[in-house]
């Protein structure tokens, strides 16, 4: 149900004309494309179409979400936002939609102060995730009045003001406002910022009326009120949408946007494969972590997955089911191990026509162990490593030549074994036993621990304490983005996660109900990235 349908339960404005003197904006996050689309669908209904393009984000410290705290809106981006805003406002004021608006004017051709105020206060609250101040509302209603007087059309005036709301930074950016905490020393997020943060974190959309009500009543700043809202949001099936957004970012599934495969070498890779592969991984992750409330470490080892017809072809699995997606379990001898061997992870980090153990290894170390790899030295001589005419025959032998060079070994000793253990899977994720006429050797040794193949790698990651810690760390930075925490105290939350047997829900809940999650240090100007000189 669109939020607007519930009009009348909550509305009106709060008479504050500016932020309180002791409050400050500690984080401004540009809406992502999904956040924007979900917000529009929830506020105006799914029948309102969002037509336009969004500026790209930029993955930073492993997450695209982090960049929303330092990117701005370029002229090209604003032009698009502006067009989308007038388009959405036109749809919302079209005749077919008007019955859904909170009120109708007495006269179609004249300004109606009361009705205009009512509509703009209502959508202002939903779009800005806080009530409009009296001055703000006067200003928006004033624009509607001017345009109505010029055009002799109530809805033309309304359209302009709605379009304006949709173009203001208050909608396009999620603003986190901090106020002094109870102890007077630290800063903590105000109630509307908390409602917004929770809603986007857990549902990937704008706060609903109940959250906004809790924000207005001050409940969001009491432990009991906060917990009640967290539990309500977590009990909803919409939690899946929130966690899909997180995992899509964490697993870097947007990499697919720029991956091409060689159609001559891999004719099976067709259009739509990337979307299916992305969906498979998201279904697996949310299925295990949310529906089944499983141990997050099992994502490295599970043979359970979800397939559609296209993927079944690539996996060479007979697809003898009805429906679009089916749950499927790979046989034990399939060599498959969790999301590591899904088509998404295998094909995103490969070349168009060939695997790259280094590329895979670098990606896995970053994504699952939070170990980023620096660029190789500029003037490195790749000849020995890469010259296929050299005395070193196989790709493995050539990669292993890195070990003889201390500078290379520092990174390759970590990345290459991870990738080499996945060599039984080609660049589009198909299983193979031979490569270039040579049998595949998928054995690997990392830090003294030896294992074979993807299942060995899966077990290694499953058992590595770095992996669940990395998931927790990423979720943590996904939640806070550019906001600096006053308290870095995450130990209790992590312990709850550990004690639960690494259940995602325990981690999420622990984080979302803890007061430290909402704490803030004053923004450190020197450390923050300045988007524009």
């Amino acid at each position, binding site marked *: 149900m669109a939020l607007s349908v519930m009009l009348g339960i909550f509305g009106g404005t709060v008479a504050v004309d500016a932020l309180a003197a002791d409050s400050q904006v500690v984080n401004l996050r540009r809406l992502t494309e999904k956040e924007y689309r979900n917000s529009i669908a929830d506020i105006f209904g799914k029948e309102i179409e969002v037509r336009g393009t969004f500026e790209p984000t930029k993955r930073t410290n492993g997450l695209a979400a982090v960049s929303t705290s330092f990117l701005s809106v370029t*002229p090209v981006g604003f032009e698009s936002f*502006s067009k989308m805003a007038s388009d959405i406002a036109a749809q919302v004021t079209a005749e077919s939609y008007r019955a859904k608006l909170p009120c109708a004017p007495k006269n179609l051709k004249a300004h109606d102060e009361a009705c205009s105020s009512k509509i703009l206060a209502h959508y202002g609250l939903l779009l800005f995730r806080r009530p409009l101040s009296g001055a703000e509302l006067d200003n928006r209603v004033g624009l509607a009045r001017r345009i109505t007087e010029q055009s002799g059309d109530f809805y033309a005036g309304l359209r302009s003001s709605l379009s304006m709301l949709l173009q*203001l930074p208050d909608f396009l950016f999620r603003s986190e406002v901090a106020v002094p905490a109870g102890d007077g020393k630290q800063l903590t997020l105000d109630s509307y910022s908390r409602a917004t943060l929770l809603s986007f974190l857990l549902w990937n959309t704008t706060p609903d009326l109940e959250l906004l009500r809790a924000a207005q009543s001050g409940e969001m700043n009491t432990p009991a009120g906060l917990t009640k809202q967290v539990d309500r949001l977590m009990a909803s099936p919409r939690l899946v949408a929130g966690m899909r957004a997180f995992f899509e970012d964490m697993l870097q599934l947007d990499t697919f946007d720029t991956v091409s495969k060689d159609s001559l070498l891999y004719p099976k890779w067709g259009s739509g494969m990337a979307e299916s592969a992305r969906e498979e991984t998201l279904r697996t992750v949310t299925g295990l972590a949310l529906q089944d409330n499983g141990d997050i470490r099992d994502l490295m080892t599970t043979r359970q997955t979800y397939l559609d017809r296209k993927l079944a072809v690539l996996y060479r699995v007979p697809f003898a089911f009805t429906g679009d997606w089916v749950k499927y379990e790979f046989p034990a001898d399939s060599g498959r191990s969790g999301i590591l061997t899904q088509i998404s992870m295998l094909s995103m980090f490969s070349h168009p026509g060939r695997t790259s153990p280094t590329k895979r290894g670098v990606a896995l170390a970053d994504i699952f162990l939070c170990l980023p790899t620096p660029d190789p030295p500029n003037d*490195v001589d790749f000849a020995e490593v890469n010259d296929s005419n050299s005395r070193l025959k196989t790709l493995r032998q050539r990669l292993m030549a890195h070990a003889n060079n201390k500078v290379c070994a520092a990174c390759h000793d970590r990345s290459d074994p991870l990738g080499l253990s996945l060599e039984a899977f080609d660049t589009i994720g198909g299983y193979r036993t031979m490569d270039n006429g040579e049998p595949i050797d998928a054995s690997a040794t990392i830090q003294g621990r030896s294992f074979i193949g993807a299942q060995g790698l899966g077990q290694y990651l499953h058992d590595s304490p770095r992996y669940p810690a990395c998931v927790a760390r990423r979720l943590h930075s996904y939640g806070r983005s550019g906001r600096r925490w006053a308290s870095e105290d995450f130990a209790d939350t992590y312990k709850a996660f550990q004690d639960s047997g690494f259940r995602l829900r325990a981690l999420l809940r622990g984080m979302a109900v803890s007061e430290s999650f909402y704490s803030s240090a004053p923004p450190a*100007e020197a450390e923050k990235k300045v988007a524009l000189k």
Partner: protein
Amino acid sequence: MAVMGLPFLDCFLNSKGQAQTGGRPLPTRFGTFFWGCGLTHSLWIPKKAGTDWEMTTQLKPLEPFRKKLNAFSGLRVPLDSKPNGQHWSGLAAASTGIAPARSGEFESKTIDQQVAEVIGKGVRFRSVAASASGDPKQSYSSLGGSNALPAEATPLSLYLRLFGAGFQDPTKGDWKPDPRILLQKSVLSAVAEDRHRVMQNLGAADRARMDQYFTSVRQTELQMEAELQRPTIEAKVAIPEAPSKDILVNNAWPNLEVVTPLMARLGAIALATDQTRVFNLSVSSPQNQMFKPGDPLGFHQSTHEEGVDPKLGYQVRVAQYNLESMQLFAALLKELDAIQEGDGTLLDHSVVMAFTDQSYARIHSVDGLPVLTAGGASGRLKTGYHVAGDNSPVSRVGLTLQKALGVSVDSWGKDSLQVRTPYTDLLA
């Protein structure tokens, strides 16, 4: 998509042969062409300097435009104490004159934006960027910092941006301003008036971001003002019909070969109809992911993995990709040169700077970065030259182009890349 070059009517020429449009000379346009991973030294650099240079293997696709071309070899890219950011420092130095401290960021506006401020006023789009390999992030046009101006990533999206909503065909007789634009403009003015409120309670970094936001609002307002005016144009071009659906856009050569000329043509028509005066086209990321079906490695990976042929002294497959990159540049020039306007072609009234990120991608070196320019800037830039190995910083090219385009600038670049002397021999 037909572009018709109709015979030019002599009565519109003044005594000097320059086109006149109600007394207004034709605008000069600027463009950039970016491809990743550079060229092969021994195959692209002519032995002779000056105008009498011999055609080389890798410049061969540009043969039809030889007289409109300048090639710069032996340019230095001094980075001082800055790191050599792989696949970044070279392109940032060429396009800003500043060695960047961090990869992925520009420390000033890029040259196309500096030029656009001067030549791009009063038209709909200050600049337009397109990515022929389908990635909006593949734009090397920036207002500085981390924000790049996103590229249109398919021919359809480029078409819609240029000739979709807000476009009034100036080649048609019944041009009239769209009244809806006036409404949108009043909304934008109202948004702009909120600046003071928005700026309150912000830290310095977020103030800078909101400053950028309001600059963007202002630019969209200017765009709408421009949309209320009928552009004066000389070229006889027809606006193509909208493509009914998009085509596959990615790094595979067969697609690049189709998409690049399509995007080039749309950009050329936009320039000719004065929708914009700055068009930036990229065909790859700096780590050029172009690949030929059947080649498991592709361009970038080949630069690092292919052995140097002991007899030939270069990487054979890489050389082929270099050549193909020049074919894509030629495709852009072909579209610009096909449109007649005034006393010459659109290309004659433009300057296009083709640049890249590496001089020798195999070892990520930047000294000797290849830079090519095409077009005579309406007679202000002499062409047909090979400017060879004079050890100038790469920024000298950028300074020269800005002088030719009428940008008032005495020096350009920073630190060792700062230059004060353009190639005066090239300036007419």
